């Protein structure tokens, strides 16, 4: 799993490439921590176009990251998600927590 960051003013796009397994989850956690320390970031866009599936721990990490962004007055959305992951997220109603858009 690879993570790419694209910054534009106070918006950060996080592109995750590959499935979020337990090793990928640790990588994600470290990256989220790094981003949490960037004071100028308000809005987060997650691009999950090439993620087919994730462990529940990966979902937990995304939710905890959202909590942090939300608590600091920022926003987060998913823009770009594979069909398979979209179904997995809809099953647990993540669309009620933050916007999930299928196409870039």
């Amino acid at each position: 799993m690879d993570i790419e960051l694209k910054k534009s003013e106070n918006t950060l796009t996080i592109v995750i490439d590959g499935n979020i397994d337990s090793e990928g989850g640790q990588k994600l956690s470290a990256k989220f921590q790094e981003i949490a320390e960037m004071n100028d970031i308000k809005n987060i866009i997650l691009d999950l176009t090439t993620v087919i599936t994730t462990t529940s721990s990966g979902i937990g990490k995304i939710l905890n990251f959202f909590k942090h962004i939300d608590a600091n007055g920022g926003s987060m959305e998913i823009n770009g998600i594979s069909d398979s992951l979209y179904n997995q997220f809809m099953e647990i109603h993540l669309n009620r927590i933050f916007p999930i858009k299928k196409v870039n």
Partner: protein
Amino acid sequence: MNNIILSGFNPEHGNIIFNILSKNNLDCRIINENIETKLFKKKDNFFVIMGVYKIDDLKQIRLITTNASNHNYIFGILENNRSLNFTSSFYSQLPLFYLPPEEKELKKIASIIKQKIKNDNSEKSLFNGLKKLNINFEWTTSELKVSKISNFLAELLKKSGYYKTTTEIAHSVLAIEEALVNSIEHGNLELDSSLKQNGVLFNDKYEALKLKRLNDPKYKNRKIKISITIDKGNSSISISDEGKGFNIAKSDVIHNTINKPTFKQIMEHSGKGISLINKAFDDVQYNSKGTEIILINKKK
């Protein structure tokens, strides 16, 4: 069989590639219209050779390789565009070649394709007619490599004919991972998931306790036993731990309520893994003590 598809090349490059591969006894066809829809529908494994000329082509490649990941992809990259070369290398499982196409390079690609077809056929024939398989493993908690063993077990199921697409395999790998992590963390290490719900960004309390117990002989030497059985087309993977036992009744409550969860339940951490496990297997059973989970696939 006509199992090589060329797509996205300009007519001149497409014809050169077509002719060289044909000369090397590989049948191919050129499909440029609606390639993604055609690939999504195909369940067999095709070799798809695609031309990458501009950044927009990479977007299409991303979409195709994710949603039709059962195929093997090879990319022909415009030689003078370094950024295309760099990014495409992430998506390709096989070597890239450069455009304009050169005979020497394409001969190498042709021999790689032939070798891959040969290897796939020999793997298939090894498992053809397999009547029964039973393997038992045992690890101590601190030594079990979760990702590697999950991939290995899912690969055995794939070779035995359970899964056809990469999406199905990916779901089963992560569902097995999920079950193993539950046995390790909530079983042998006796970590309570309520520790994860303390509202901080990185579950420090949970992770700190996990690390402590992974070094504590009382917990780290407990065993995880795994057994995989394939018999008459049915398969089962059993994972058991030496913890105090999982509360199955509670898991049912979580799974049932997850259909209409409250905002708080969505935000909380537990129950999501069980839903992933249930989705990836035909049946999921537990022993009465709650120390063993059995993931079952039935004959298709």
